[in-house]
């Protein structure tokens, strides 16, 4: 991709009227253009293109959407929106939990935003990070591996019986439970779409999609809640205890 082509694209994106056809239909090409725009300091174009990458290739056949989310985090950070950047880094980590760069940038962005670190370093945070250290595929693979071991041990016990077989079966049950724990912990979270509160002063949850509606709760900056539904200008979220409410879309990011 030449610089001239990038400039043409930027002009097409910036100059009125906007031509949606100018956005590339190829995720890899959009990614390359976004990198050039980012390097040139054109953060708006870079953001548009990486969002396009995520839209074109949600499965990551050409460009990993986790990479696009990571880069969108850098764009947000460079624009002075560390809370939004943290939301994008968390999105990256949801797909690649052991991405060291995303972790580093997440902690840096949270510190810049004055929010508590993602990994506080205490026992609970360490266990939580351990449980979520594998991505969804790895968690499922580990659970299946545990099930295989359990099959062998239980087969031995069923066919031969005896104290040794029983002990082996119990051990296999424990190992299988351990292997299945990350998978169980990820159940639900893998498929839930989260809304990240990115407004610097938090977001108010209303009972209806109207600013005049009753205020149910105040979400702190950086909070994450499951997204249930969306309307223009509003995102419906689910709070603890199953209560659902609406937050203004300009205060949250739904990656």
């Amino acid at each position, binding site marked *: 991709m030449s610089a001239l082509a990038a400039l043409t694209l930027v002009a097409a994106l910036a100059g009125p009227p906007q031509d949606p056809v100018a956005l590339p239909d190829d995720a890899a090409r959009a990614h390359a253009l976004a990198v050039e725009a980012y390097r040139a300091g054109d953060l708006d174009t870079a953001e548009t293109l990486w969002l396009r990458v995520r839209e074109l290739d949600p499965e990551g056949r050409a*460009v990993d959407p986790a*990479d696009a989310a*990571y880069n969108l985090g850098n764009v947000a950070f460079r624009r002075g929106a560390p809370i939004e950047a943290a939301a994008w880094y968390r999105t990256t980590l949801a797909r690649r939990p052991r991405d060291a760069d995303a972790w580093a940038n997440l902690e*840096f962005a949270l510190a810049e935003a004055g929010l508590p670190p993602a990994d506080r370093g205490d026992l609970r945070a360490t266990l939580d990070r351990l449980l979520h250290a594998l*991505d969804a595929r790895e968690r499922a693979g580990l659970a*299946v591996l545990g099930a295989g071991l359990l*099959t062998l041990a239980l087969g031995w016990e069923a066919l031969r019986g*005896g104290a040794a077989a029983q002990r082996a079966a119990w051990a296999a049950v424990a190992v299988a439970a351990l292997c299945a724990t990350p998978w169980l912990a990820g159940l639900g979270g893998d498929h839930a779409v989260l809304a990240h509160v990115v407004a610097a002063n938090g977001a108010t949850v209303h009972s209806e999609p109207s600013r005049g509606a009753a205020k149910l709760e105040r979400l702190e900056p950086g909070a994450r809640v499951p997204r249930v539904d969306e309307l223009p200008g509003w995102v419906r979220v689910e709070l603890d205890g199953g209560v659902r409410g609406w937050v203004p879309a300009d205060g949250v990011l739904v990656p």
Partner: protein
Amino acid sequence: MEPLPATLRWIPALLAALLLAAPARGQDVTVRAQLSSGVVKLGGDVVLVLEVENASSARVGALPAVDGLRFGQLAGPSRRESRVIVNGRMREYLSLRWTVRILPERAGDFTLPPIEVETPTGTRATRPIRFTVVEDLRGQELLFIELRPSSEQVYEGQPLAVELVFGWDVNLNNQVGGLDLSLPWWGDLPGVLEVDGEDRGLRSRQFEVSVNRDSTGLVEEIGTRQVGGREFRLFRLAKTLLPTRAGKLSFGQSYLQFVQVVERGRRDMFGFGTRDRTETFYVGTPAFEVDVQPLPETGRPFDFSGAVGTYEVRAEVDRRDVDAGDSIKLTVEWSGAGNFEFFEVPDLARLPAFEDFRVYGYNEEKGADHRIATYDLAPTSGAVRTVPPVPLSVFDPALGEYTRVESPAIPIRVRDLAGADGLEPLDEEEGRERDIRDIVAATRSAGARRAPPAAAVGGILVAVPLGWWVLRALVRRRGDPDAPLERRRRAARRRLAADLRGARRADEQLRALHAFLAARTREPEQAWVGRDVEEFVAQRRGDGPERSGHAGDEAARALAAAVARLEAEAYGGGDQPLEAGEVRRAADAAVRCGL
């Protein structure tokens, strides 16, 4: 006297108990005030005593403000109780006493207004009290006192020296019975810090004198002086004060109390006798004020750190010929007249002139008349030729403006280390910035990262224990797989192989084969001795003797033939063993027969 009858003996005890149990208290609560003296010499003090009777508790209200009188702290209450039997009734007296010292500040007649006292039965007031304060003319004649500030106007932070000179007629030298200085400003001036080193300049003879009756001050004797035709023996008390805020510093009247021994008391050998007869004189100084000006904002340097005064500075280094990176101790001393304890010494690491030095830190020493800072420096290259001047921004009260005092530059020689470029500048080592990590520029696919459906994984996790439960039930329908006979049956082939390896004769091979067949059929070995193998196999299969052509017949015949040959050899006397492989084939034939 006849004793009381037993029935009346309790009466006196009852009367006594009633007397003691219900004493009559003083009836009315009374409040009284009185002075220790009705006439007071100026410079002396008078004690006001407040007394409340017949009240278990009381609180004295605010003391009145009277022009020309200074009240001390209210002390008390002290509590006194007494019981008196009057006309056979016990009366109980209770009194509470407070005292307060009153210092007159001028001569004249004074009236103490009523002082309110809160008691449990209501608020009561004392009666007005009159007293007179007179000039002590004799004291003014025999004593001398003078209080001088170093200046009537100072700036915030500028030290203010106060010098008190006092003394007495030299003719009283042998009649000194006691001294006390009454200094209302002593340790009690608001907005002022007292600088250490008040004994600065003390020369020969030093004495401690009583100040305000509750503390002491160190004075020096400065000789004699002729004043008004009299010769006085004089002493000096110096104090340095540091005003911390703008305003007026009020120095109230200071007094010297001198006790003259008019006649010595006499003592006998046991220590009894009369006391000294004394007379007390007073002399005072007029009150005055010192104006404290704020430091001007105009022209205040950014690096001004509070130094006020007339400063001089000198500097020296411990080494002048060093290698690059070697430590140099730079000692800077500020002296003169100023607040040397109350400013921050310059931070050389922040001075551009010291860019070619690594500054490791400094130690400092504070004194009332000097300040010393010893910096630990290291030149970073051989290009350094001097230790630059150390500047300090000072407000000079004499000039009324901010000035800058600088130590002189000190020439040094620095040699570069062989093969080295000197020390790295400090800021490059510590000035690293933190930033986010860069974007992912490469095009990477997510690969086959798609996770299997949760239902599939969950199904596997559920199916495994379910399958185990079904399989286990099926297996257990044929019996316990862990029962000894079952274990023997499963181990029969291994045992046969082991037995055949140790068999040297036909009868040993026959016993091994019988053991194998017995294990497979869950029978004792003796059951196979002399058994018709073909008929047994047919019966196991449920075939009638007329049936033929079954798929296992051939195997049954092979097994029967092998058993027959072994029996012939074992029981026929030949006892020649068969080939081990032939016996194993017979065992295989038995398994094929369904045994």
